C-alpha cells in the first residue's frame, strides 16, 4: 500500500481555507440573521420607540413621552378597555391551560393498540390542523342562539337558549372553549408521543410495587411526562397570549368590547376601522410583550440549564 497520495500536499493554504471553521458558521448564519433582525428583532425595538409617539399612520408622528402609558393606566383605573383586555388575557392564560389535562386525558384514552387506533388518533388530532378562522366560524354557528347545536342540545335537556357570544360574562369563556378544542388536540399529540417514551420497565416496576390506575399515573407516569408537560405548557401559554384569530372571527371583541384581549385590542386600536392610533397600539403591544417576556425568560432559562447540563 502506498503511503502517500495526492491528499497530502503542502501547497500554501488560502486565508479562507485556513480559517474555514471560524468563518463558516457566520456565512451560514448571515442570511437567517439578516432576515430575522430586519423583520423581528428590529421591529420589537421600533415598537418600543413608537409607543412614545402619537401617530395616526398617515401624517407626522408626534413625540408624547409616556402619555400612551398614562392613558393605559387610566384605562386600567377606569376599568376600561385595557382593563377588560388584560383581565381577559389572564382568564385566557388560566383556562387555556385546561388543554393540558384534557389533552392528557384523551392521550390516555387513545394510548392503546386496538384495531384502527392510528386513525382515531389522527382524527382526534384533526382540529389542530384546521385554521383558527374556520374553527371560529364553526364555533360561532355552534353557539348560535337560535339554531346553534349547543342550544339545540340544551333544548333537549329543557334548558333555555343561552347566547354565549352575546353575553359579556360568557363570551370569553365561549371563545376559550373554541380555542381549547385545537389546543387540546395539540397537547394530546404531545402526550401521546410522551407516553410512547415512558420507560415500560418503570411501569412494570410500579406494577410490582403495587401502584395502579390513578396512583400509577400520579406517581410514575406523570413525572416521566414532564418534558411533554413542559412543552405543552409553553405552547399553551404562547397560544393564549397570541389569541387573535378566534376573537376577530367570532366576536370582533364584542359584545361592547367584553371579549377583547390585549392582542386583539392592540390590533383594533392600531389597524381597525375606528383605530389608527399606532403609538397607542404599540404601547399595548409592549405590555403584552412584557407579560410574554416572563415566560420567554423562564423558557430560555430552562433551556440554558439543559444546554449547560450536557
Amino acid at each position, binding site marked *: 500500500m502506498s503511503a502517500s497520495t495526492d491528499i497530502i500536499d503542502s501547497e500554501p493554504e488560502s486565508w479562507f481555507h485556513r480559517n474555514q471553521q471560524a468563518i*463558516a458558521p457566520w456565512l451560514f448564519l448571515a442570511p437567517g440573521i439578516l432576515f430575522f433582525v430586519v423583520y423581528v428583532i428590529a421591529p420589537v425595538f421600533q415598537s418600543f420607540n413608537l409607543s412614545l409617539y402619537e401617530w395616526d399612520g398617515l401624517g407626522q408622528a408626534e413625540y408624547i413621552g409616556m402619555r400612551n402609558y398614562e392613558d393605559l393606566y387610566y384605562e386600567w383605573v377606569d376599568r376600561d378597555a385595557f382593563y377588560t383586555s388584560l383581565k381577559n388575557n389572564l382568564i385566557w392564560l388560566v383556562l387555556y391551560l385546561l388543554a393540558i389535562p384534557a389533552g392528557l386525558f384523551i392521550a390516555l384514552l387513545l394510548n392503546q393498540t386496538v384495531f384502527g387506533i392510528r386513525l382515531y388518533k389522527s382524527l382526534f388530532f384533526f382540529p389542530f390542523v384546521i385554521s383558527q378562522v374556520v374553527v371560529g366560524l364553526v364555533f360561532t354557528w355552534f353557539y348560535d342562539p337560535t339554531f346553534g347545536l349547543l342550544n339545540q342540545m340544551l333544548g333537549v335537556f329543557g334548558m333555555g337558549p343561552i347566547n354565549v357570544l352575546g353575553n359579556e360574562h360568557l363570551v370569553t369563556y365561549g371563545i376559550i372553549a373554541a380555542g381549547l378544542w385545537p389546543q387540546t388536540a395539540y397537547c394530546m399529540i404531545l402526550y401521546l408521543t410522551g407516553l410512547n417514551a415512558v420507560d415500560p420497565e418503570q411501569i412494570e416496576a410500579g406494577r410490582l410495587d403495587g401502584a395502579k390506575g390513578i396512583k400509577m399515573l400520579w406517581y410514575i407516569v406523570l413525572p416521566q411526562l414532564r418534558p411533554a408537560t413542559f412543552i405543552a405548557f409553553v405552547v399553551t401559554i404562547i397560544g393564549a397570549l397570541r389569541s387573535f384569530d378566534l376573537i376577530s372571527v367570532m366576536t370582533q371583541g364584542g359584545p361592547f368590547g367584553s371579549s377583547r384581549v390585549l392582542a386583539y385590542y392592540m390590533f383594533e386600536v392600531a389597524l381597525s376601522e375606528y383605530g389608527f392610533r399606532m403609538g397607542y397600539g404599540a404601547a399595548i403591544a409592549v405590555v403584552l410583550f412584557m407579560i410574554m417576556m416572563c415566560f420567554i425568560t423562564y423558557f430560555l432559562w430552562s433551556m440554558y440549564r439543559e444546554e449547560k447540563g450536557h
Partner: protein
Amino acid sequence: MFPTPIEKQPKAAQITYKALLPVALLLWLGPLLAVALFSVKPDADFVNANYWGMPSSFEFFQNYGQVFFNSDMPRYMLNSILITVPTVIGAVALSSMTGFALGIYKFKSNLWIFFMFVAGNFVPFQILMVPVRDLTLDLGLYNTKTGLVLFHIAFQTGFCTLFMRNFIKALPFALIEAARVEGISEIKIFWYVVLPLMKPALAALSVLMFTFIWNDYFWAVVLTQGAESQPVTAGITSFNAQFRAAYHLMSAGSIVAALPPVAMFFLMQKHFIAGLTLGAVK
C-alpha cells in the same frame, strides 16, 4: 405501557372501550361534522329551519360548484399556495443553514444567537405589527404576496432554527469529524453529509410550516388586502361577506379552505407528528 393495554382487561371493558371510541370521536368532531353537513344542504333547509336534520336534497355539486365557479375562492386558494410554498422553501432553506451553524460549530456567541432565534419565535407577533407593516409599505411590498412571504420566512426562521439546530445537534458529531479528517470543506459537509441526513427533519418541518403558514390569518389581514393577494384564510371572511347568512355556501367555503392542510396532514401524518414532537414547540 400505560394505561394497561385494553387487551389485558376484562371482555366487558374491551367492548365498552371499543364502543365508546367512535362515540367520543363523533362528539369531538361534532362541530366539524355539522359544517360538513351544512355544506351539502340546499338553501331551503335553512329557510325552513331544518338545520340539523338530514339534507332535504343532496346539494354537494351545487354548493361546491358555487364556491369554485362563482366566487373568488379559487383565486384565494391560488394565493395561499403562492404564499405558502415559497415560504416553506425559504424558511426551511434559511433555517437549515442557521441550524447547521448553531448545531455544529462551537463559538462564543453560539448559544446567544440561538436564544435570539428562540426568543424571537415566542414574541407576541402583535408587537411586530406596526413596524413590519410600515417596513413592507416602505419596501413597496404592501399587498403583495412577496411582502407576506418575506415576513413569514423571517418570522418562521426562529422556530425552524430551533427545530433544525436541535435536530442537527443530535446527529452523531463523529460524522462531521470523519468528514473533516477526510478533508471535506465545510460547505460540502453541509451539502453532502448533513443535508441528506436531515431529510426526515426537512420533511417534518416542511409539512408543519405548510400548515402554519396556510392557516395564518393575522398577517394576511395586516399585510394584504383584496382577492389579488390575500390567502384563503382572509379570503374566507370576505367570501362569507359575499354569501352572508348563506350557511350552506359558507360551510362549503370553510371546508374548501380547510382542505389543503387537512389533506397535507393525512398524507404526511408521520412527518407531521414527528415535526411537532421533534421541534416540540410552536
